[in-house]
């Protein structure tokens, strides 16, 4: 099986056919991954190098933690990925970003309103939880399409706070 694993916009071509072996970008490497029963931990020996990795799978993505570094990995069947890419636009980078409450809390202040242009990492809402004020920031550059809350609201985990849409592109 050929896979493409994407980490931070970087594609790794990984071929898995024989047990105990992977081919990474055409280089054969000895690889042995074992689950630690009852946990989300895996022991990976890669060319005899020992890694204890923590893996969580959410919404089709693998969240991998190694030595305190966090990686988000998207694994796709290489053939499918190729097929998808055939039709034209492969990726969907034009989606709006839905910013939802990462925890239950109290909305202390809303920092933006619909129509505002925002930068990546710009504060959108201040949410109080665990006795601390937390600034919820924009995951992307764009324009605020809508704001779902106002100061004084109590929100639950996952409630939509703000939707940021991409800056309309100039005609090609």
């Amino acid at each position, binding site marked *: 099986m050929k896979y493409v694993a994407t980490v931070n916009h*970087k594609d790794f071509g990984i071929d898995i056919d024989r047990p105990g072996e992977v081919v990474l970008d055409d280089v054969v490497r000895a690889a042995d991954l074992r689950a630690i029963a009852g*946990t989300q931990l895996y022991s990976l020996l890669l060319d005899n190098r020992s890694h204890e990795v923590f893996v969580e799978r959410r919404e089709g993505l693998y969240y*991998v933690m*190694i030595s305190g570094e966090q990686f988000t990995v998207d694994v796709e069947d290489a053939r499918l990925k190729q097929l998808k890419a055939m039709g034209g636009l492969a990726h969907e980078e034009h989606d709006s970003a839905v910013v939802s409450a990462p925890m239950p809390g109290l909305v202390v202040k809303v920092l933006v309103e619909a129509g505002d242009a925002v930068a990546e990492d710009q504060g959108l809402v201040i949410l109080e939880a665990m006795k601390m004020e937390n600034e919820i920031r924009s995951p992307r550059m764009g324009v605020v399409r809508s704001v779902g809350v106002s100061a004084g609201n109590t929100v639950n985990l996952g409630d939509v706070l703000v939707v940021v849409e991409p800056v309309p592109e100039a005609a090609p």
Partner: protein
Amino acid sequence: MLKKVLIANRGEIAVRIIRACHELGLDTVAVYSDVDRTALHVRRATEAYPIGPAPASESYLRADKLIDVARRSGADGIHPGYGFLSERAEFAEAVADAGLTFIGPPPAAIRAMGDKVRSRQAMIAAGVPVVPGTEVGLTDDEAIRVAPDVGFPLLVKASAGGGGKGMRRVDGPAALPATLEAARREAQKAFGDDTVYLERLVEGARHIEIQVMADQHGNVLHLGERECSLQRRHQKVVEECPSPAMTPELRERMGAAAVAAARAVGYHSVGTVEFLVDRDGRFYFLEMNTRLQVEHPITEIVTGVDLVKQMLRIAANRPLRLRQEDIEWNGHAIECRINAEDPYNHFLPSTGLITHVIEPTGPGVRVDSAIYEGAEIGLFYDPLLAKLIVGGPTRADAILRMRRALEEYRIMGVKTTLPLHQKIMDTTQFIAGTYDTGYLEDTFRIQHEIRTDLDGVAAIAAALLAHQLRGEVINRLAPAGGPSEWKQLGRRLGLRLP
């Protein structure tokens, strides 16, 4: 001596105090809110009593309920831990009025140090240096008028504040009115008191605190300093002992000032005097914490003195057996506070069920923790999950040991600040010991860059797992299929699907 001690607290500090009591042969009484029924402090205590719903204001802050439980259980002393009621003079008084021993300082000392303005005045009178600033609560107009005399940058600070609450930085006159308003609002909400004052912000300063210990017979001594400059939002993140900036001469002077501070308010029990130390080694009184500190273990490791046992002995009116000349500082200790926060996502609080914990052990490692497999981390209390403390003969030994211990630590189910600490231990500023109170927020960034030697490893791990899952699906799901099978499969592979 005491016989049975009620611990008016929860979390790691309640467990810490229970351990000290049991090691002294004392029985313990735990109290718990509805969400804490199976918490570690409940399971480790001799007895346990419910005190109400999850919000602290209806449970851990209810002095009446705590005293009632003490009476019913036959406890003869109450240890307040830190936070909650630990620095409320009225609580200490109510405990004494009920005929019980408050395991902490006298109410008058708590009161004297609890008010920023009053404590500042007391320190000036006692000859302890303080940061330039205004001396009393001010109206906004007054504050705006005198601010230039204090000098910018300055801090607007709440008189009743603590832990960074009600404290705001102002860089110039323009921002002052809005900041005053915000600080007052936060202070009013947090403490029911919007009195504020202004204080010069000593930039590039270190936050160094001195541990003091005093009995009820007039003996006061200090146990040296803790370096607490690594802070985020005025919350300490990493502490070490001794401070890389300390000299024996400065320690002696700061120790003497701390002892004078404690004497000035008639202190007994253990307590901490916090100072700012500027680049030239000048130090200024900040405040006194009239309770046990979160970071007390690093002093215990370096001095060999068990501070909680000392508190219990002092409360039982025993004289100190130690004198100042008995206190020695051997080796080096570091503490990392492990919080339920996501360092890769703006330190947002993380909640959920702890599914698995592996704590580091072995030589020179101490973990003070209250988490366990099956613990539910919610939003009602502070995010501190555990404290990882290491000691070693030298600072270099301690740093290497801390790295080793952090690498071993696994907490699954919630995001934690473990990766933050791993990064901090690798920075040149920490290794060189040259950081100041601004470092963590102004300069340090948890790198989003991917270590090039590890991204390929992550890719391979994920691909292998995907391949295993796929293989399992093909092999096992052909007959049955359906989502429940997926779950079963995930369980078998140790993978938790959403």
